[in-house]
């Protein structure tokens, strides 16, 4: 099975978390070092949560769930996430 979605589908769920447009952010994979825009990630889900994987090595880069009163975000698979700064 190929990925259910690409990273563009993270825009909605992550709009409650990030103040900037996250799909153009650059994620550096902690496993293989590849830089990908969030839009390029391979996203599986949507339930029980969304899992975004590196298009290079399939490692998990991001997970997000929404429970009754919380949004849970895991970015532990990334070496970094570079976000566009306002006016930058």
């Amino acid at each position, binding site marked *: *099975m*190929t*990925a*259910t979605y690409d990273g563009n589908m993270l825009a909605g769920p992550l709009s409650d978390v990030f103040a900037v447009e996250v799909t153009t952010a650059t994620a550096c994979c902690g496993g293989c070092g590849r830089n990908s825009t969030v839009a390029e990630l*391979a996203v*599986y*889900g949507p*339930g*029980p*949560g969304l*899992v975004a*994987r590196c298009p290079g090595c*399939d490692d*998990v880069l991001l*997970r*997000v*769930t929404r*429970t*009754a009163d*919380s949004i*849970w975000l*895991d970015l532990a698979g990334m070496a970094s996430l570079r976000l566009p700064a306002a006016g930058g």
Partner: protein
Amino acid sequence: MPIITRGFRGHRSGDDERLPPGQYLTHDFPVLSTGPTPLIPPEEWSFTVTTETGVRHEWSWTDLMTLPAEEVTVDLHCVTRWSKLDTAWRGVSLDVLLEDVETVADYALVHSHGGYTTNLPLEDLLDGQAWVAFEYDGDALTSEHGGPARLLVPHLYLWKSAKWVRGIDLLLEDDPGFWEQLGYHEYGDPWREQRYQGD
């Protein structure tokens, strides 16, 4: 007149009583996935139980096929709110697999090919409550549903029934799995609607 009273409860088929709170009935078998579907030839599949002292018990596919298998018909309840009734499986009970495993562990952490994990109390794997299942509805279990073999623990939400199961660590302390780390309930009883931490 208890028999007559029961007849006036208004359930056409009795299905409603078999649906835990917040669930709806489906006749499909939705596929939920956290990553690419692993394609594991049975001859490369194995199942390993590792105790809290590090003792390993391993079964190959051939070993699994020589063990006594059971046919079970169970209801499935997914935390994404669908339930599917009367699903037919064939598999080896964890009672058989754990029979000769010496342990004082209270917890189990289940591992799958592809990196998925899920945790549950060891006692929920015993006493006819859990199987390593390799047939669904009379056919070999397809890879999209977890074949060649998956865990089947139908009394808990389906995320505990790890697809592509490859082993179980027996632990003295609970260790949260893939979804349990991210807000999902450590136990996940559908009848108590234990979806999220704190439910």
